[in-house]
């Protein structure tokens, strides 16, 4: 099986896969626990508009997606403050706006509609050194920020009011979390594709939550589940010539089902 690694594009895909396998659940845990799971979907839809804009303007599409998602992240945070009782409304507004913009841009640039397919479902063949470099830089930024701000992120995710009183800059931390989510999606769309990126942020976390461990153990298990899904999914994609986004997420869903079934068996009742 190791012979597949003699190909440069496969090494690139695996290296990029391992990075996104770490960063997706790392950010995913915080957004799931803040009950903002849909934020990944909203930003993914915006990223489609960003990729299309990048292609139209002739710039690297991932940069286009990143810029537009960072902007959308700022808007979501602003709208969340405006509609405090309906925080999910901010996500719906941005998701619709992103999708409408994407449709318009795709209509304008009909010639690149085939290349956008790789961004929708992910691709192994197209991960080049430039992609790997971008994913690597984004990965370092995300991991370093989470490690640096882990106590603040934990406190704000658990209870904002108490965190604010303890001196945590809650508004800034919330903003940083949304921007990190945008960076995570930007790093992930080349491999997993924008349609399934948020799944990789949510499903390994959902699996890990079933283990009912403390916070940091839940985080570690979520990363492990995610890495297993990425490795398994990539191998399956290579050997069966399938889109890696589908196989990776399929693997993570299988792990969730396995854990749920094991629990049902252990407890002797359906969960």
């Amino acid at each position, binding site marked *: 099986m190791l012979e597949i690694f003699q190909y440069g594009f496969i090494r690139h895909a695996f290296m990029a896969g391992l990075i996104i396998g770490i960063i997706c659940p790392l950010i995913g845990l915080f957004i799931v626990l803040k009950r903002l799971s849909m934020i990944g979907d909203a930003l993914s839809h915006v990223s489609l508009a960003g990729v299309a804009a990048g292609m139209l303007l002739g710039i690297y599409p991932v940069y286009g997606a990143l810029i537009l998602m960072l902007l959308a992240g700022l808007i979501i945070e602003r709208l969340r403050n405006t509609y405090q009782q309906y925080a999910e409304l901010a996500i719906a507004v941005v998701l619709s706006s992103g999708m409408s913009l994407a449709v318009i841009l795709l209509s304008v640039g009909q010639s690149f509609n085939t290349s956008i397919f790789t961004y929708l479902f992910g691709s192994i063949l197209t991960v080049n050194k430039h992609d790997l470099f971008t994913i690597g830089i984004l990965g370092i930024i995300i991991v370093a920020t989470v490690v640096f701000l882990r106590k603040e992120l934990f406190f704000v995710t*658990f209870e904002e*009011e*108490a965190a604010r009183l*303890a001196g*945590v800059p809650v508004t800034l931390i919330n903003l940083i979390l949304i921007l990190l989510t945008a960076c995570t999606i930007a790093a992930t769309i080349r491999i997993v594709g924008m349609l399934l990126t948020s799944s990789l942020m949510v499903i390994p976390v959902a699996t890990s939550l079933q283990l*009912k*461990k*403390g916070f*940091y153990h839940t985080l570690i298990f979520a990363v492990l589940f995610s890495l297993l899904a990425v490795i398994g999914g990539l191998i399956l994609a290579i050997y069966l010539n399938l889109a890696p986004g589908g196989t990776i997420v399929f693997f993570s869903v299988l792990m969730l089902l396995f854990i749920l079934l094991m629990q049902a068996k252990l407890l002797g009742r359906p969960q």
Partner: protein
Amino acid sequence: MSVSVIEVQNLSFGYNAKPILNNINLRVNAGDFLGLIGPNGSAKTTFIKLTLGIIKPWRGQIRLFGQDITVFKRWDKIGYLAQRAASVNIGFPATVEEIVAANLYRQIGRLRALKKTHQTKVQSALETVGLINKRKCLIGNLSGGEVQKVFIARALVNEPELFLLDEPTVGVDLKGQEGLYELLDRLNKQWHITVILISHDVGVVTARVKRLACLNDTQIFVFDQPFDFLSSPDNLAKVYGQGMQTLIHCHQVNCKGRSFNA
């Protein structure tokens, strides 16, 4: 003269241009045990949030430990148990220990792990509330009363000099309530922590606290002897309206050897 812990002068605040607090003045001294009561919508929680700087007043001055709230930095001196503390996401994957330790945020500092001194503080706070044996438990596996104790331990971990509790007995059974009131009594008498307790339970609060403040209709009424409030129908009517006597008729409370039918 006693040291002032909270000093509120001419405080006014409202929502949508409608005032709910008007020219409020209150001084809480070190060692006080103040009960804050009032009907629903009398702005008890809002008043506490104003004194904690969570919301900004329209007018007036708030001083904490002698310092204006706008320049006050020693928030670790203050412990706060919010009204909805027990209704936070109990499915959150965090142990009792992790939740209590989170409040040591300022002491630990960024990029640093919990040191032995911090762990000792966490253990001490959990011993105080009687949850030391459950320190490794997930918060979702605890009862409502135990969850409330976790939040009390979180507030106590910084060894605060002032402890504010907003309706701490909501969702707690009678035994749990009794334990909570005994704990507050101990914190006030033995640890000399200044306590401010917001509650709807007028009878019990009156029996427990040293002073009583009643909020109603944008005003505050302060009673240095809590039973002065309960024993006077005029006071009850002023704060709660004429029907109040019927409302708490069955409360028999004991205080300092005296028994009252409120």
